[in-house]
């Protein structure tokens, strides 16, 4: 196997403010192989959405990407790439779908306008050919009578339909990588399941790798090949879906998985992580999780632990991992 589709190394993203910069994403590294699905899991504010935007080069001032950061798409460095070159990659090799389908489509433009422009932005084709492509793409995501729907405005669609349109647009050019930023969170559970299975199928048809950003572990369990768990801007654990969900090493991942209701026995009390997610401006010193961690000791208050490798290609950043779970699958 050659190099991975996406390789992120030491990525940091900070937002300058008058009280000093806040680091939303802090020195994270991960990779996604061809056709693979990586689940990026974390609570809101953990930096997972910012990571998604950074991959697309959509971090605007006052946001800044850190000096040592590297994002490689098919071996090509994206950090520091001039905007006009980056623009040519976006939508063609790199695509993104967003959380709220009600707001991702421009309310005053017709669906055909928004789809055709996405085709012609990257390919020198006639409007007629672009329209045919748009129609075909709508059909692929399961939208009935696409000719009619192309002439409609976004508000004439339901949330699920809009997200399907967004997915159709994102996959128009068979991108190498799709970043999906919680695309099903705002939808009903039944629609959610439909969309996930459709995206999964489409991505496997086009060979598109995915970074699926979510806070929902059940989505990850059904969809992802590998998982990266983020906390306060860092990846605290990373590994295959089975390993991380069944045998978490990091106490945070452990707690997160324990707090999913379905994974508990009926009648037994729901496990919780005590306390609240710290705000980025007031991160505790050392491992940011230590105030909430049942296993924390003095050492945790000193420095963030380094990422340690474990069997099965897993990594975790913890001084006191759940070593009983270390066995590889």
């Amino acid at each position: 196997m050659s190099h991975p589709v996406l390789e992120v190394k030491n990525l940091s993203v900070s937002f300058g403010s008058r009280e000093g910069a806040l680091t939303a994403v802090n020195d994270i590294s991960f990779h996604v192989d061809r056709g693979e699905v990586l689940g990026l899991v974390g609570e809101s504010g953990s930096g997972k959405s910012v990571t998604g935007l950074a991959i697309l080069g959509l971090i605007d001032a006052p946001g800044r990407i850190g000096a040592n950061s590297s994002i490689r798409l098919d071996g090509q460095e994206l950090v520091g790439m001039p905007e006009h070159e980056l623009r040519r990659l976006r939508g063609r090799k790199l695509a993104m779908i967003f959380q709220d389908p009600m707001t991702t489509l421009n309310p005053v433009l017709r669906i055909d306008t928004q789809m055709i422009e996405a085709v012609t932005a990257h390919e020198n084709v006639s409007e007629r050919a672009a329209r045919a492509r748009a129609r075909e793409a709508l059909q692929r995501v399961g939208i009935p009578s696409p000719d009619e729907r192309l002439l409609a405005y976004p508000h004439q669609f339901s949330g699920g339909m809009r997200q399907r349109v967004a997915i159709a647009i994102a996959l128009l050019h068979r991108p190498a990588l799709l970043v999906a930023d919680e695309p099903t969170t705002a939808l009903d559970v039944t629609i959610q399941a439909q969309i996930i299975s459709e995206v999964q199928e489409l991505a496997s048809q086009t060979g598109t790798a995915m970074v699926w950003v979510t806070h929902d572990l059940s989505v990850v369990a059904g969809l992802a090949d590998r998982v990266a768990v983020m906390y306060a801007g860092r990846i605290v654990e990373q590994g295959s879906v089975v390993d991380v969900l069944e045998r978490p090493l990091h106490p945070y991942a452990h707690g997160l998985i324990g707090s999913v209701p379905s994974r508990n026995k009926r009648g037994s009390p729901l496990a919780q992580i005590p306390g609240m997610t710290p705000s980025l401006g007031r991160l505790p010193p050392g491992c940011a999780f230590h105030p909430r961690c049942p296993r924390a000791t003095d050492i945790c208050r000193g420095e963030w632990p380094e990422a340690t490798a474990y069997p099965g290609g897993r990594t975790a950043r913890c001084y006191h991992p759940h070593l009983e779970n270390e066995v590889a699958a």
Partner: protein
Amino acid sequence: MLVYLIRRIAQAMLVIAVMATLVFFAVYAIGNPIDVLASPQADQIELAAISQRLGLDRPLWEQFGIFVWNALRGDLGTSFVYAEPAAKLILQRLPATFELAFTALAIAVFVGIPLGVYAGLNPDSLGGRSIMGGSILGFSLPNFWQGLMLILIFAVILGWFPAGGRGQTATVLGIESALFTLDGLKHLILPAMNLALFKMALVIRLARAGTREVALQDYVRFARAKGLSRSRIVGVHILKNILIPVVTILGLELGSMIAFAVVTETVFAYPGMGKLLIDSIGRLDRPIVVAYLMMTVVIFVVINLVVDIIYAAIDPRVRLSEVKG
């Protein structure tokens, strides 16, 4: 859409009817209409003729009927000074005023929107800040004084443009307008700038606020994620969204432009209906004042109506909700 249209037109008629009633009572019920509508120099025979025409010897409701009937036929009284129908005099000057108002509107839109969008995209840059500062100044400068300063700088000191009047007109495709001659354009530029400045400041503010808001929307981010060029994102995705509030406000402001044309026309001695109004007030030529009032009411109501319809045409959401409603 049709139901909406009919309802809006009915509303517009109602407003005109209410205003006509108000004007009628203002003229007739307060004081003797003869005092208002007859020239102070009129002799007994003339007074009797006016009294006869207006039906002043009949009961009030019948007088109202005559007033309405006359107004519907376009008879809004006769000027003492010109001895011609007031409506005709105003209509003669209407093209000049419209020419001025629309040129000013065009300046406000075509200069104001780009500046506002620029300031919205670069709010902290020097350019963005200067544009905002300029628009605050534009709000604070009284229209008439700003006009005087334009005359002082561009006509008196620099001598680039004439200080007043309307230039030559030419007829193109059956429309007579000063826009078709160089002389006409030269005469138009200062008054149009004068009338445009305040609205331009308004457009800049609206466009800037709109751009700042729209630029943060998910659909702009999604448009960028699609790999669209910046010019397409700004020119289509952002612009089309901010146009809705700008067009609405500007349409409503077109009425106030016609009102403020009164000031500009006086400053620049520009022969439009506003100058006629001020001259008529000065000469106590009241039929013209009454006629002007009635005609402006109609113009305003028509403008509001047209704006609402355009608004429904550009915003698909309004269109839908109105059809449902």
